């Protein structure tokens, strides 16, 4: 490959990059990652639950306890207070599932985050939408909840003309939409970046050109950096999604919000 052919390098369309053949009816790579995430998460907690809790935790037990404490101290206590500790299993499950769906994006030979497809983020956001609205209705009653959402206390009545449509759109449409799109778009963007730099590195290394091969080191270094960055993004997106879920549930639980 010479410079002319390199300039003619064509990046495959995004939908081609996301095209996975079904390994079984209705089961493709993304579905398999989702199932694997559940199996791994269950496996860790199953191994943790079987160990003697009285001795100092090690291995799976230690990992499970660290995750539980992280969810309780860094998410629930920060956003909901001690009254939100009952939500630990729900928020913990969300965090683990999303993280284990995100992280395969940087695992060699898998290299696809399941959340880079819209299916799982859409379902998770829809479920959170149902949960926080149901929580609001349960705690405040249907009338009280919708009243507190659409007519926030403390706002001058004249401003309700502006505030009420904004709150209506924000609470019932934008929140789930932003939850889903934030997760999906971040993971898809990261995946595409990795693909771009991997393909570019491969093209330059295979150029058989004295100049282009050393140049290939540059995109390869960026690829390595982005891979490390995606490890952080995988965690960060799971953390953000879980934290926002806790915030929305807490807001729905209390009328003063």
């Amino acid at each position, binding site marked *: 490959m010479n410079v002319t052919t390199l300039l003619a390098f064509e990046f*495959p*369309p*995004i*939908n*081609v*990059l*996301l*095209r*996975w*053949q079904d390994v079984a009816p*209705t*089961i*493709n790579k*993304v*579905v398999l990652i*989702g*199932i694997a*995430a*559940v199996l791994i*998460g*269950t496996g860790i*907690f*199953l191994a*943790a*639950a079987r160990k003697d*809790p*009285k001795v100092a935790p090690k291995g799976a*037990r230690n990992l*499970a*306890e660290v995750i*539980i404490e992280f969810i309780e101290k860094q998410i629930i206590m920060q956003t909901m207070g001690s009254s939100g500790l009952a939500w*630990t*299993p*729900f928020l*913990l*499950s969300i965090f*683990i*599932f999303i993280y284990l*769906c995100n992280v395969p994006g940087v695992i060699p*030979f898998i*290299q696809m985050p*399941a959340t880079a*497809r*819209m*299916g*799982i983020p*859409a*379902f*998770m956001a829809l*479920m959170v939408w149902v949960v926080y609205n149901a929580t609001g209705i349960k705690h405040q009653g249907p009338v009280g909840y919708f009243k507190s959402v659409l007519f926030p206390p403390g706002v001058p009545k004249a401003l309700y003309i502006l505030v009420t449509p904004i709150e209506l759109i924000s609470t019932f449409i934008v929140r789930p939409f932003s939850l889903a799109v934030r997760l999906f778009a971040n993971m*898809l963007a990261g995946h595409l970046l990795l*693909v771009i730099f*991997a*393909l570019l590195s*491969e*093209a330059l290394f*295979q150029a058989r050109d004295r100049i282009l091969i050393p140049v290939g080191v540059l995109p390869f270094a960026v690829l390595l950096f982005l891979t490390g960055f995606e490890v952080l993004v995988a965690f960060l997106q799971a953390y953000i999604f879980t934290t926002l879920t806790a915030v929305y549930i807490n807001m729905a639980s209390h009328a003063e919000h």
Partner: protein
Amino acid sequence: MFFSTIILAAEDMGPNPIAPENKELLWGAGSFLVFLFVMRVFLVPKVKKGMDARYGVIREGHETAQATRSSAQGDVAAYEASLAEVRSEAAARIDKARQTLDTERQAKMAQAAERIASKRAEADKAIEAARAAARGEVAAAVGSVTARATQLVLGKSPDANVVKRAVDSTMSGGRS
């Protein structure tokens, strides 16, 4: 190309990159709901129960250690108080014993001084008596010698009283 091996070649252009695929949505939903159920009902409560039990044991251990420490500190304080009391009592006894010893020493010294003074007086008396006796003997001898010398010179014996007075006067009055 390596990556091209995991991107399947197909005739169609693949799924819409934005729209959710039903199979992915449904499988994802089913997987997560099963996961949530298992975590909510079985696993998290069991792990949390173990954590709470262990934290309870640790907390209990801390409280026991704290109580033991407080008790030990109380014991140390009581010991130090009793030690101070014993030391104070010992110091008082030592002072008292010292005073008693001083009194006894002074009394014994007074007695000894009295005995010494008495013995000295007796010794002085004995010395004085011995001196008087010696003087008498010397005076008698001197008188006798004087009387004999006078007799030899004058041819007659002097009056004994005169000789005695002269000898006494000479011995007591100094040398002439």
